[in-house]
């Protein structure tokens, strides 16, 4: 078992982790250049800073035009009708209970009683599943993979699976798409694109981005060859399903034909056929919702975490599931090994990493998930004190999010410090991993950003040639890329080279969609 005590001490204050070479993390001054041999690897990756101050906040908080008009007393029936249309039954009851008309005393008392009953019932429901009493924004903040979703300028981050292109969702509900090959940065805005919790690029496709919003899932069809910086909202498909909001997690099938979406409020997760906008709800009561989805890279299994102390692993052929109760709390995050045979997950309230192995997947075991009986602890991340030259550093705690690089050689875990002790901090710990013949987890080191910056989100580049490339979004709004240079021990997985993809995307598929962006 690996523990934090085996780690090398964190870099000196003021230093920034730059890269990994010869199995050691190198840190130095922020403006330091990479060694010459490696420079061309990262030359065109955009390193950017999006401070919170530059983002335009919402000019108005309410999303209706109501306050702009002079107040006008309508009849009660009209108001009730409006409330019914806007809010539903509760709105009508509220409207009647608060009515100023004097002659409707009995109706007012009746509706206030009914309202009280409603509240009582919902509080009863909420006591079973406490997360249901949260408002949807708090709920997203609670279940998001970003450490400080509500306060930081970057809310979600997603690498394109085949090219060097990523999307960043920002605090002002816009999404920017950065591409290494082009200078245009499309900014996506949509009326329904509010409180983005997660994003995912469609695999085996030029440029389709699914966005988990507060009320729906938006699927943006972007044209990689377009020069437009503001794609119109006509390029977005709206996938909405009653009772399925807020959406906190999305996962594309690695083969690209299905999209899964999950909401902590809905007990069903939805399987979308995006092209036809059909969906199949996969209902499974218990748990009270689905908070986090992770599709294994080989496409055979899906992890679905719930808000209560249970998570499920679905197999993606016949869609049956195995249920895994945890002891302490809900499953916070999880990641799959590249061959889909091992799941690492963490649980809220425990500072350890669990591992769960699955039997080798083959088509003959229809409808079986094939998980082992028990999960084993592979790393202990409880708080550890490091004595350094510059004083002592306390590191350790619960894992907030965890990513595994596509070659299966590096694992990054975002460890949230203990909130009670001020000197413990949020930090990214990197492990060296090996999956076969035996699973091994070895310490590699801690990543440190600029002074005062705390890591928000982490993501591995899906097709970095010389090892692995971790992208870290910091609380200052900075997005930096930290390369790990190593020679993969495994058979090289044939991740696509960017060039044919780009060529194809411009040839057959995407250039044809140009009317969406043209000026006509």
């Amino acid at each position, binding site marked *: 078992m690996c523990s934090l005590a085996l780690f090398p001490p964190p870099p000196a204050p003021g230093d920034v982790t730059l890269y990994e070479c010869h199995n050691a993390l190198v840190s130095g001054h922020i403006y330091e250049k990479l060694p010459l041999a490696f420079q061309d690897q990262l030359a065109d990756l955009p390193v950017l800073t999006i401070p919170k101050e530059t983002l335009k906040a919402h000019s108005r908080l309410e999303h209706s035009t109501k306050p702009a008009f002079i107040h006008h007393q309508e009849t009660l029936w009209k108001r009730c009708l409006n409330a019914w249309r806007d809010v539903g039954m509760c709105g009508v009851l509220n409207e009647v209970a608060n009515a100023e008309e004097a002659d409707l005393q009995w109706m007012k008392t009746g509706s206030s009683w009914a309202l009280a009953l409603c509240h009582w019932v919902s509080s009863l429901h909420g006591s079973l599943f406490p997360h249901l009493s949260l408002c949807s924004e708090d709920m997203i903040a609670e279940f998001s993979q970003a450490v400080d979703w509500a306060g930081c300028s970057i809310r979600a981050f997603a690498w394109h699976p085949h090219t060097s292109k990523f999307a960043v969702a920002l605090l002002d509900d816009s999404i920017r798409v950065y591409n290494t090959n082009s200078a245009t940065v499309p900014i996506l805005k949509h009326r329904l694109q509010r409180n983005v919790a997660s994003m995912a690029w469609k695999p*085996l496709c030029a440029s389709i981005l699914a966005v988990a919003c507060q009320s729906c899932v938006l699927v943006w069809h972007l044209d990689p060859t377009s020069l437009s910086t503001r794609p119109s909202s006509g390029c977005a498909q709206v996938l909405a399903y009653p009772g399925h909001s807020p959406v906190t997690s999305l996962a594309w099938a690695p083969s690209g*034909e299905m999209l899964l979406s999950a909401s902590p409020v809905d007990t069903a997760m939805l399987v979308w056929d995006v092209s036809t906008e*059909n969906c199949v709800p996969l209902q499974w009561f218990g748990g009270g919702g689905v908070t986090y989805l992770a599709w294994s890279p080989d496409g055979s299994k899906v992890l679905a975490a719930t808000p209560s102390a249970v998570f499920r692993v679905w197999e993606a052929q016949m*869609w049956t599931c195995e249920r895994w109760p945890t002891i302490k709390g809900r499953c916070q995050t999880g990641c799959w090994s590249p061959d889909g045979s091992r799941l690492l997950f963490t649980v809220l309230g425990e500072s350890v990493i669990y591992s769960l192995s699955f039997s080798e997947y*083959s088509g*003959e075991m229809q409808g079986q998930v094939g998980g082992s009986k028990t999960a084993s602890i592979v790393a202990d991340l409880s708080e550890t004190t490091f004595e350094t030259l510059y004083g002592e550093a306390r590191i350790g705690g619960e894992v907030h999010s965890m990513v595994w690089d596509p070659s299966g050689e590096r694992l990054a875990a975002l460890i949230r410090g203990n909130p009670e002790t001020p000197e413990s901090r949020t930090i990214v710990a990197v492990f060296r991993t090996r999956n076969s013949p035996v699973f091994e987890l070895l310490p590699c080191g801690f990543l440190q950003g600029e002074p005062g910056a705390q890591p928000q989100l982490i993501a591995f580049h899906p097709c970095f040639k010389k090892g692995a490339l971790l992208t870290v979004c910091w609380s200052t709004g900075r997005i930096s890329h930290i390369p790990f240079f190593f020679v993969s021990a495994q058979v090289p997985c044939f991740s*696509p080279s960017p060039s044919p993809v780009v060529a194809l995307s411009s040839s*057959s*598929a995407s*250039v044809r969609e140009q009317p969406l962006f043209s000026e006509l």
Partner: protein
Amino acid sequence: MHSVPRCLILNICYYHSFILYYCTFMNNVFSFILDSFNDWYTSYVIFCILLMSVVILIISIFNVEFYAVVPSIPCSRLALLGKIIHPRQVIHSVVHAIMGMLVAWCAAVMTKGKFQFLALPCTASESLDGAVQHMCLNEYHLFLLLSGAFMGYNYSLLYLVNNMNYLPFPIIQQYKYLRFRRSLPLLVKRSCVESLYLVRNVCVAHYFFGYIPRAWISTTMDLHTDSKLHPLDTLTGLLDLSLLYHTWLCGVFLLITWHVTWLLFKIYATEAHHFPVQPTFAEETDQCLPKILNSNPPLIIKFLALQDLMLLSQYSPIRRQEVFSLSQPGGHPHNWTAISKECLNLLSDLTQKLIMQQEAAATNGRVKQPSTGELGRSLSSSEEMAFQTQRSNVISRAHMPSLVKSSLLPLKALSTSDLGSSFGSPFSSPALNRKAGILDLNSPWHGSVQSPHVMRRGPKLWTSSSGGDLRFQSPLILLFVLEYSTQPSFIYTWLQNKQEQHPEASIQAVFSDAQMHIWALEGLSRLVAASFTEDRFGVVQTTLPVILNTLLTLQEVVDKHFKLPHASSKPPRISGSLMDTSYKTLRFALRASLKTAIYRITTTFGEHLK
């Protein structure tokens, strides 16, 4: 070959036994609700249960007889009308009406009370001789029977109009029980709501026409009308809550049982079937996948085979190995050749069909298409175009303003080569169409800008002015005569109107069997992708150029199709209804899976394709 239908029949038998079981169960529930326990064993009820089983059996026979994997989409209203009065459909409707009546009779009998019998002794003792008891017509019973027949007929009509005979294949595989359970709540809800509407319609129909069957029944069966009871074709008679409630309940029962029968049939018929790739015994040769794909079996079996191909290419490495294997004596890749050939045939057939359709659309005057030769040329050069699109993109962009301007200029300024080359650029549709229209119309107005409206009226005005001495009449008469002389007769125009093809429907009709192509695309591309690591003998290598060529050609044509002006580029909103309308959106699924297939092959092979 015989055993494949056999297994289908086995499936269906299995499904019938399930239905029988379930039908008795439903009857139990229903009669439990309606009756007290004491009456359970009466002979009537047992007879009713038997009768209901027969009804369900007949309904499911109709389901089996009428199903289709490719929906038939009427392209015009006249075609729909033709479908309704087709003898096959008439039989369907009549049988369903009778079945509905039987269900209603069972419901009436099991309800007891005032609904049980058609004839009752008269309550009014107006007859002088008390010895002879007159029998009176029980209109409540008649009402239930009629409403049952109405509901049955209505079900049959909706079955036709909503294409309920279409078997949609699910987007994910699931066990039968889970699929059934998933659809059940919606089914019950829809049946309840639909039954409400049906009751309303029955009441309206009965209010206006109820006296006809009543008079007929009472004369043929020599029954009297009970003067004490309200006749049911009056408002007061119809406002009987118990009657309405029982009619509604009867409708719910009817719809739920029939819909469940239908649902179970759908689930059983679309279940994935496992075809062997290589026969283990000599007599199984006819049932193995390559053979079935290459022969012409019933369509459902072909669909199931293609679905199985898609599943095996995705999930089963062992069966993929069989596909890539060589034949034992001789060493020929027969399996792979047969499978790939059939898939490619399917795809090139679709390409042909789309090209034909686009040409038809062009001659309709909707769009101007480049000639086939040009199309072929552009297709052959598609690969080299792949690397230049950025440039061509810029070119077409540069073209755009000039095109818009030139439509305002006299026609002579517009060279035809310009027109041809600019087609296929995304900016073509509105301005170009108008130009094409001007080109086609050889009218004296050429050279000046005309709205399409004026152009259509152009010839009419021309003939009228050449109309000889009419010229000297008053303008009013002239107008009147003009209207009659130039306009065809009313019926003709009406027919024309009805026959005019609805563009959306005709597009749906073109893509109605696209599910096959989607599976062929997925299966083929997955096999090719898997061959990168699993194909030991390199059997796929030889066909790879052909596959890529076919896919890219199809891509080109599909892209062109989606650029036709009347083709919507987004799927329509689907309301949460019970009826499956997935056939309406198949073309979008085809487009998406085509792109994914091309990307799957190119990303797997990557640099090796160069």
